[in-house]
């Protein structure tokens, strides 16, 4: 397939735009000197991943990313940053770390393993009978995957209680 054929398909144009924006935003997240800018560009990267899920037909996952990650997690990040310190311009605290090269190496390796395992598992195969509708996801969650589902909710509850215990101060005796 030549590049002209590839680029005339609207889906490929959309994918290219989204992917480039995501990569750019992800680089800014780690390179910026301002912690609020890092959180805001993370939103762009997450929105890009939601858009890719929409393109793949996985609507439920896409809107969950928007609702949970953008609407709640990043908002809580920002809330935490702003309530403690709200740097404008360059942050006085260095957002860097001495072990940045080992970290970069591990990030690159994780990317390599993920990319290799997905291409090795699926290759150019087209998956036509995916679980797309919310109804089907719900059916599967509460029949075949009910044990993992319950286990995850239990772990989440434990994490919630643990968070409260760690955060609260015991009254002086």
């Amino acid at each position, binding site marked *: 397939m030549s590049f002209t*054929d590839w680029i*005339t*398909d*609207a889906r490929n144009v959309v994918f290219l735009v989204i992917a480039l924006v995501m990569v750019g935003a992800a680089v800014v997240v780690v390179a910026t000197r*301002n912690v*609020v*800018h890092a959180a*805001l560009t993370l*939103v762009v990267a997450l929105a890009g991943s939601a858009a890719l899920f929409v393109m793949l037909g996985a*609507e*439920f996952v896409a*809107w*969950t990313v*928007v*609702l949970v990650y*953008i*609407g*709640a997690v*990043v*908002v*809580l990040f*920002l*809330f935490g940053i*702003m*309530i403690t310190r*709200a740097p*404008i*311009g360059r942050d006085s605290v260095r957002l860097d770390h001495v072990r940045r090269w080992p970290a970069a190496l591990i990030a690159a390796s994780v990317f390599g393993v993920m990319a290799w395992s997905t291409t090795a598992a699926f290759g150019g195969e087209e998956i036509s009978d995916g679980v797309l*509708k*919310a109804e089907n996801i719900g059916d599967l969650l509460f029949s075949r995957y009910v044990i993992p589902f319950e286990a995850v909710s239990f772990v989440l509850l434990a994490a919630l209680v643990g968070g409260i215990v760690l955060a609260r101060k015991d009254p002086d005796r």
Partner: protein
Amino acid sequence: MTLAIALFDNFWVLLTVKLLAVVLVLIGFSLVIIYAELKIMAHMQARIGPWFAGGRYGWAQPLADALKFLQKEDLVPLEADSPVFRIAPAVSLMSTVAVFVIVPFSPTLIAEDLDLGVFYALAVGSIGTLGVLMAGWSSANKYSLMGGLRAAAQLIAYELPMVLAAAAVVVQAGTMSMAGIVDAQGPDALFTIPGTDIGLPFVMVGQIVAFVIFMIAALAELSRIPFDMPIAESELVFGYLTEYSGIRFTMFFLAEYAGMFAMSAIATTLFLGGWYFPGLNPSVFGPAVMMAKVSLLVFVMIWVRVTWPRLREDQLQSAAWRYLIPLALGNILVTAVLKVVL
């Protein structure tokens, strides 16, 4: 090859047409709602402008307002974080515009009937919080920051009861598609007036609690009186909007009024039967019925604004966490049990 080009054209043309329609509908209705608010407030509080501006009926008042905002200088404070400050109003407005995509005006007049309509509306609606936080932080002003933090705390607190109230309707209707929810109250209704085949809206068959919770949460999400602590002028100047002027202030302003319309449209679809009215053909009268119901809810929102005093910050938080959320959870429980039993 030719087929690929045809598809290409089709996709972009369709996308542009749909986007344009959504944006035009949004701006048109916002202007009408602004005018309605001015008129209703003028009648309820004896304000003079909206009675006489432009001669008859005060019709020129919203246009005069718009012109006033447009010709004001668009100031950016020297200390502000310029790019974030400039983008914040757009983020706020975009999250409201995106909700309009799934508002059904008739069985066919809907930009896109998503399988997950309700979920989508709540998800993109939550992005607005981000715009408010961005505005509050980037202004480099303590009042703005406090306003932004208050707004974020309020929006997070009231998103939960809103989602839970909507979830009860989704359980009762058995679908998340906006068109499907209207169908469940109209043409193939789950509940009808005994002896006839006239469908009943969900608000009349047990979802009155969810409806009240939804409308309270909607007012809080829009930061309108009595939930306008983030922009309380006696405490915070104008909260996260303090440093905004000109066109960027207008965008926040528009986002509030478009938000009123969007929230009312979602509430109408979920609880009041959307475009359905017994005896009226929905493909002809659908949009008019829908608009009448939406206007009713918008009127209630303006009415509340004119007559209620502002709540206190701690009252607002305890109302959400201690009363509305448990109530909404109980409502889901009752709905689910009745759904199985009946």
